[in-house]
């Protein structure tokens, strides 16, 4: 899964409702790879509206991925360096295996074959 997918997911254990803690999930023991992909400006502009940018920069920093500014530039299209770095972090950074832990309730979701497993047991829903 790309970091984009991680940015879309949160803990959904029933009692875990604090939005400050159930998102973003904490990546642990992950295997990372960079997958070179052609940059697509329209796709990035679409994603800028969909990404939680604060969560993205927090996660990127934890993974040692530097170079994203603290805030989205006012005119991102006019900032090719930003667009390229966003592309690399969001769409080229791929997690093949690992875990995502909730900072609220501690629930751990696994990532296998690049696919996150968000299924919960009956009593957790």
């Amino acid at each position, binding site marked *: *899964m*790309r970091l*984009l*997918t991680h*940015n*879309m*997911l*949160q*803990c*959904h254990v029933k009692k875990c409702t604090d939005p400050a803690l159930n*998102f973003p999930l904490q990546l642990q023991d992950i295997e990372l790879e960079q*997958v070179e*992909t*052609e940059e*697509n400006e*329209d*796709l990035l*502009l*679409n*994603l800028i509206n*969909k990404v*939680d940018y604060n969560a993205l920069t927090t996660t990127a920093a934890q993974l040692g991925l530097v170079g994203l500014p603290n805030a989205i530039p006012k005119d991102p299209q006019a900032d090719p360096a930003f667009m390229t770095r966003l592309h690399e972090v969001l*769409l*080229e950074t791929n997690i093949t295996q690992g875990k995502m832990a909730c900072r609220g309730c501690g629930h751990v*979701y696994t990532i*296998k*074959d*690049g*696919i*996150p*497993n*968000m*299924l*919960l047991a009956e009593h957790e*829903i």
Partner: protein
Amino acid sequence: MQSTSSPTAPHLPTPNLSHLSSGQDYANVYEPAEDSFLLLDALEADQSLLLETVRPQLCLEVGSGSGVVSTFLAGQVLRTDSPPTDYNSTATLYVATDINPDAARATRKTWLQNGLPDHSLQLVNTRFTEGFHPRFCGTFDVVVFNPPYVVTDPAEVGSHSIAAAWAGGIDGREVIDQFLPMIPTLLSPRGVCYLVLIAQNRPDEVVSIMETHGLRGEIVARRKAGIEYLSIARFSWP
């Protein structure tokens, strides 16, 4: 169903599924059948609506299984050499979920086998859209679900294996009825949702239920396949 195209108009090609084999993959993942193909036909019939009016930026398939539907939507219906407008289909993001991890892997295989870019498909092993951040409420421009609609013993509902692809419990409605109230929370203002149903699911009643949720519904395709009377319901905001 009314159609303005000529009866000889060529169909869009069905995605290449040669990488999936009946012995291995289809033991654990639902093999595309008449219900899947009727859904593809309904999407194809709506190509102009989708390209000109909906102009999807975010698409969701629940229960993506083999991946044939999302791959067809992305690779055939929305990707066209001559878009009617400035719509850029390569900027569209796709989300696919399945409760069955083997199905999620098959979805990705089919997507890649048909030349679609890995990074534009976000695959998650989950029920419906459980685990997605609430900011995605009301943002999906296309929502597609070929649900487990077969009338079965209720005890068969809720597995994470291939039975999850078809076991629908009483009237085949148990999973469908869980999904219906989610549709209005998923659809963007211009969004459309396509749902496969059979006669035993009482499609007209499903449409009425969605009207109580404020959505307009209609049956846009029908076909008899073996013992099943299949239909495709389409929902959108009035």
